[in-house]
């Protein structure tokens, strides 16, 4: 069977149709945040236009949250990402077994589980990074269930036949192998030096058979214990690695006037099996959650996060939906050797809102990778002034800095200021 994007679109539409059958439901809710801003990037001489929209539609048995993001200009990018989009229902009258279909993260049906990129599991899970400074952990397309064994224990199972890898800012390969990268694209090596001679590299993407790439089994099993003071999740899953391992084949292309290194990249998504545990003490200050995920085939490869949460009403906003919760913590990975810079390069993070006046809210995000020789910083401050209940104006400053070979340092010329408006329906 060949699977194309058409099939995926049709599936999503079917789910939407299924969801809209719940509209007459009295408990249906819809909210839409539409924002528009002008951005001035340090790297650009002229401003760019930025549009974002976040729609949440929820009924008793259907939930979708669709994000739209668009940035003008030759280096702008866009995304429309409905996630989650799920139809869920209880399988039995006792409401012990809840089944879902659609696209969602397996743990999202558990109470107060929102998988964030700053968590250990989120950092190794498939993400949407098209809005590079605001990545989102994506769900799987498939079906799952949550079965309550008793008041405290639950079983979680999810199966997905369709693998969607992490999407990041486009490199914009041309037919001739030249790049037209998006603003936050992580640029591959520019040239190859051999024998003291630098040769420019041209890239070609060899995706191969799409069905072989996408039709991959993904299985998640877990159990969860929760009482008033503690929650513990233990889980294991197998899925293709979300970030591609590029299998490169290089040739020297001799043209009429120049020589280029033609690098043909065949992205590979090798299967990985992970296990993990998440322990959260809800009775302690900041409800600290410790999370550890372990690659079962590569034992030195594991990620740890420690996150504290605090209550804040001001999140999310149009631009800071990294997580719906205010939090701070640490995320780090351990590996024998480091290759490309990663988000989890000993990341310290802080997301804190501050209600300065009833109409003025300040939101601050600080993320800093502290791994030696990979130190970098992302600092965002946003001020939202509500003119009306459903209309506000926004101003923000984003500062990016860091060493050459660091996660945020790669974008250090992309600091920006912005001014925008937001309308809520």
């Amino acid at each position, binding site marked *: 069977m060949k699977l194309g994007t058409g099939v995926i679109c049709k599936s999503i539409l079917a789910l939407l149709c299924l969801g809209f059958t719940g509209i007459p439901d009295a408990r249906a809710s819809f909210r839409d945040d539409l924002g528009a801003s002008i951005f001035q990037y340090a*790297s650009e001489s002229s401003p760019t236009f930025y549009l974002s929209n976040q729609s949440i539609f929820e009924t008793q048995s259907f939930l979708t949250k669709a994000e739209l993001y668009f940035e003008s200009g030759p280096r702008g990018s866009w995304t429309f990402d409905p996630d989650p989009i799920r139809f869920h229902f209880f399988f039995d009258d006792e409401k012990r077994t809840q089944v879902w279909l659609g696209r969602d993260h397996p743990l999202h049906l558990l109470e107060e589980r929102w998988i964030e990129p700053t968590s250990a599991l989120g950092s190794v899970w498939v993400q949407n990074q098209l809005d590079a400074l605001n990545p989102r952990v994506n769900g799987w397309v498939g079906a799952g269930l949550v079965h309550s064994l008793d008041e405290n224990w639950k079983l979680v199972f999810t199966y997905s036949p369709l693998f969607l890898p992490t999407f990041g800012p486009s490199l914009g390969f041309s037919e001739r192998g030249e790049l037209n990268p998006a603003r936050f694209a992580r640029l591959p*090596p520019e040239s*190859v030096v051999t024998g003291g001679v630098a040769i420019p590299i041209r890239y070609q993407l060899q995706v191969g058979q799409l069905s072989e790439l996408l039709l991959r089994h993904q299985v998640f099993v877990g159990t969860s214990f929760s009482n008033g003071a503690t929650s513990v999740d233990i889980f294991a899953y197998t899925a293709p690695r979300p970030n591609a391992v590029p299998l490169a084949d290089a040739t020297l292309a001799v043209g009429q006037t120049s020589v280029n290194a033609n690098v043909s990249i065949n992205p590979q998504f090798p299967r990985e099996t992970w296990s993990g545990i998440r322990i959260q003490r809800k009775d302690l200050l900041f409800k600290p959650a410790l999370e550890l995920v372990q690659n079962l085939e590569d034992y030195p490869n594991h990620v740890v996060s420690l996150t504290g949460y605090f209550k804040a009403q001001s999140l999310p906003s149009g631009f800071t939906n990294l997580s719906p919760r205010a939090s701070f913590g640490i995320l780090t990975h351990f590996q024998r050797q480091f290759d490309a810079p990663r988000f989890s390069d000993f990341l310290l993070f802080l997301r804190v809102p501050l209600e300065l006046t009833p109409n003025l809210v300040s939101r601050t995000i600080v993320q800093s990778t502290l791994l030696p020789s990979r130190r970098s910083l992302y600092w965002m401050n946003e001020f939202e002034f509500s003119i009306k209940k459903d209309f506000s104006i926004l101003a923000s400053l984003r500062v990016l800095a860091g060493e050459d070979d660091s996660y945020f340092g790669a974008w250090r010329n992309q600091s920006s200021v912005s001014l925008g408006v937001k309308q809520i329906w």
Partner: protein
Amino acid sequence: MVRTFRASVLVSCMLLSGCGFVKSIWNAAPPKRKTVILESKPLPPFSKVFSENEDESASTFREWKSSILGSFKQIEGRQKEFLSREEIRVLVASGLVKLDDHRSTSADRALAILEILGFKDGIGIRELNSLFDWIELHKSEARDFYLLFLSETYDSNRIHARQIISIVNLFGSFVSLLGDQDVTPEHLGELILPWVPKTHPRARNALNSGIDLGISFFASFCGDRVAQHAWNGKRIGLCLKSLIGEFESTAPAVDFMFGIRSPSENTEALLHAAAAFEARVRSWIHGHHHPLFPVSKVAQFSKDLGIPPPYAFLKMTEWMPKLNQDSTLEGLSPKFFVELAGVVRTWITDAANASKGSGCNAQEHWKSCPFSGDYDPATQLFNGEYATLIRTPTLGFVSKVALYHALSGFIFTKLDIEKTGEIGSRIKELITLSIRLLDSNAFTQNVIAAILEKPVDPVNTEDSLKAHTRNGLAELAALAADLIPNRDQSGRTLLRKLQSQILGREKRMPYSMDRIGLTAFIYLFDLVGSLNSDYLLRYDLPVKSEGTLRFVNRRKIIESFPKILFDHFPRLYNECVAWGFERTCGVVFDEILPNSLPGRDDLETYELDVITLSAVLIESMMNRCDRNSDDSLSGSPIDGYDEKTCMITVSTALAKRLMRAGFVDQDHQTEFLMKLTNHFFIAKWAAKAALARGTAKGIAWFALPAANWLTGPASLGSVMSVAAELMDPAKVKAVETGTDGPVDSFGDELLYHNRLTDYHLPRLKEAPRYRQKMRTGE
């Protein structure tokens, strides 16, 4: 107030520094995009392919082949696994393939070598494979070439016939790669020019004439087997291959010629090879049409290269029409090689026959093996008294004599010398040229030096050869050579002896040149050249170069010549010491040695040859006249041509010739005395007495025959003593009286106050003589 001010200053500073920080962040440059450094494992040096360790050689070859073919497969042009000329130009211009520091030159070189290799349109995997196959096929030959020419211990004496065959084969096969196409000299020049660095302007300048010379050489050498006016690699390759096939069986002869095979080793095989060599050369030349080799191309090449032309070669060509009837003044006929092959055959045959049974098969040291056979020319030239190279009867000596005897035979036949029995002045020039041509590779060295932009050596130039003629050295050599052969004198009958006494003179011509004399002449030139280098090196004589000339201090020569005599002419040295060194050899050699030019204190290095030649001449006179070899010249009342008379006759004849040659000053008084002694026996008796007493003083009493006989025999020392008096009485007088005498040139002052004896004579009082050594078994 002050506090407010301080606070304002602090805030201002913070704002300023804060602004600066924000500005630096805002203006941060993006990180440079990464560069992939490709560092493949370095390949072992390609020279290891030529390693004698077969495993190492094979593995190196495999590594290179797989690396290059692997790399090539990763290069994409318009066609699969093939790069056109244009694509190669782009590839090389990018710097990925480096054949020179300048990329454009690199590209030119790459395209040129491709065309030279016959890959005109480009190169593909197939062509690369064939190139590797070629290397693998010729690996052992390339190894020979590599070991021979790239090793630091290159020595032409170690070249084996097998190596020559290998190299010719390799070269032939290499040029064959070019394919069956005629390339004009101009186009071949265009192809090779990029390979000649710009730092070598002389080589670049001479490239076209060099190619022209090469084409002419192959045209002449290979005849109609190759293209006559163009470079056709395939045909030249086939010619060389055919040459190898023809001459493979002559390997023993070639090995002998290159000095790495003893003439006594498997004599029959050597004789057979020598005969085959001549036959092969004959069939090679006569079987095809071979055009003349144009001499002017050599001169043009030298001119373009900026080096002195090979004077000896060019002058030799003037003789070619006489030596070879097919040659002209403008061109040499390859048929001359047929005649030379005959000379080679005679040489090898004589050497092999003479040394048959000597039982010396040592490949490297056979030349020093003692000679125990019978070879008349060598016996005649052998002399136990002088010059290390001629007083040891070895296979090397015999081999050399055989070569020169074969050459002299050829010259005699061609120039009809045997009819006259005399050697003309032009023959001396021919021999000089021949020897310079044979024993010197100066022209080759100059070609290499000029190509490498190194100073060019002036040796073997017109100047150095003119100098020989100017100073009468050739005359001196001819005189000495005439005396060297130990001509048998035992045939003189009592009647003949009485007749000589009555008639007062020997009828035999004192100066003539037969074949053995010519052989000695050639040998002597060889000897003089070898000894000259030996003197400069062994006696540490400082050489000063000025342009194309080399000089050595005259005083240093005077200081060193006692040591020269001690080592090479021990009998003469001992006799001079016995009679007073300064009084005898000191004055004679100081007089023979030219004075330095006005304003200078030195002489040209070749002028050292006069010491060797004079010493040989004096010793030869003694050998000739000392018939009973008792180291003394006795008189006889019966024999009119006794030993003393012989010495007087020979020396006066030689003196006359030397005077005519301008070698010694023409002194009318001496000439008169010489005539007197030859024509009046009273004068002759007086002269005999003078010879015996070592002085001409008071000889009047001894003019009576009875008194003359009372004076006893003369010796070499007494002869030198008389010669010194005749040459410069003033100096002799000063030496005798212990006063300062005339100082005509630098070093003359060493003759007085026993300075030579006290400071510059070797410590051993007596020089060991070869004959004595032989007797004592040392």
